[in-house]
């Protein structure tokens, strides 16, 4: 879980650990189910160590992370402000697959086309699942929007895979 996300969720006001978790799950919808619960607290601990977050233990309650109240420090707030204005975008990592195909062809370990087809099939299945989930969401829900993003990304990747298939087929025909 990215540190800045947790910081941002605390920007409005300090909250309990379990509140944080609940908000995350709501925003992520069905994807929130895959989230590892413990991950949030690990991140919170790291942030506390870095001095961006302070925690308070409510008196008379067991020493448990979900009962602690977390809040931002001044440094934490600065970090959030900076993060909100950043425009970096999550990296695509097509290079790995691309090199996989080249290596397979060069060493004659496997048919690149078969690799592409297998990958396509897998992505199609994922697309189907994501689409199903997206359609199950009510209109204009936040989680639905996230799922739409996944669907469109997969679609773009599939297009690239189709292009790979065309090119590698041609290469095969020419050789």
């Amino acid at each position, binding site marked *: 879980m990215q540190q800045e996300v947790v910081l941002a969720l605390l920007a409005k006001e300090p909250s309990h650990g379990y509140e944080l978790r609940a908000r995350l799950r709501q925003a992520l919808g069905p994807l929130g189910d895959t989230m590892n619960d413990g991950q949030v607290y690990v991140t919170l601990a790291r942030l506390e160590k870095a001095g961006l977050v302070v925690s308070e233990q409510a008196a008379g309650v067991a020493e448990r992370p979900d009962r602690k109240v977390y809040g931002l420090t001044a440094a934490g707030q600065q970090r959030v402000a900076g993060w909100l204005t950043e425009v970096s975008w999550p990296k695509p990592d097509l290079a790995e697959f691309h090199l996989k195909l080249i290596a397979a062809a060069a060493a004659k370990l496997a048919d690149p086309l078969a690799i592409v087809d297998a990958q*396509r099939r897998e992505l*199609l299945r994922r*697309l189907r699942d994501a689409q199903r*989930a997206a359609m199950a969401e009510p209109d204009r829900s936040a989680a639905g929007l996230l799922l739409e993003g996944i669907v469109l990304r997969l679609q773009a990747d599939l297009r690239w895979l189709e292009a790979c298939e065309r090119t590698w087929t041609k290469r095969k025909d020419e050789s």
Partner: protein
Amino acid sequence: MNEPGSTSMVWARGLRKEYGQQAGLVRAVDGVDLDVAPGETLAVMGPSGCGKSTLLHLLGGLDRPSGGELHLAGRRIDQMSERGLARLRREAIGFVFQAFHLMDELTAVENVELPALLAGRSPKASRRRAADLLDQVDLADRAKFLPSALSGGQRQRVAIARALSNDPLVVLADEPTGNLDSEATLEVLRLFDSLHAAGQTLVIVTHDSRIAATADRLISMRDGAFIDETRLTGGSTGQLGALAGLEG
């Protein structure tokens, strides 16, 4: 697959469509075998010019094959007369086009009732059925609108309602989302999904992988022939988290 299965909705063997002669011969569809079960959604994908639209036109009786056999719901249709094909289209086939092809001067409900009128049903029954169908596709409030007053997605939904007018055995869709933006595509996707759930047999030709992903079976086509077949069964949303960038 040498005999039409008794439960096949659409069955084809060695289906061919050629244009031109000798040196200029173009094989738009080159020996296609097909078997679609009732209630199945089949998607045919391929690059433009691969012959998938031509294939669909053959399946729908809009064009005659140059060779091969084609059966629809147990009836052999590749040798049928024009009149027989017309009747077939009336009773058993619903068509959805990429360009919608609605009549510009008819309202939505008049467009939807047209196949029923052409089949000889009474005007009242046709109108009632059309109103029902528009309700099913969630456009009951736009029944009296002209196509020019509807968005692309709405127009395609009207076209889908029209395709269902005579309770067809199979709905053939040719690039149904080709002219639509992503939100309209979603509308159409939902509709296809509900049709599938209701047991309608669907054959969709598309190069949009989102539409293809709704199918039970996906066939890839190139240069007039089938090259690949995939059965799409679902995993779980467990993998999706990773796709969204959430580490496990």
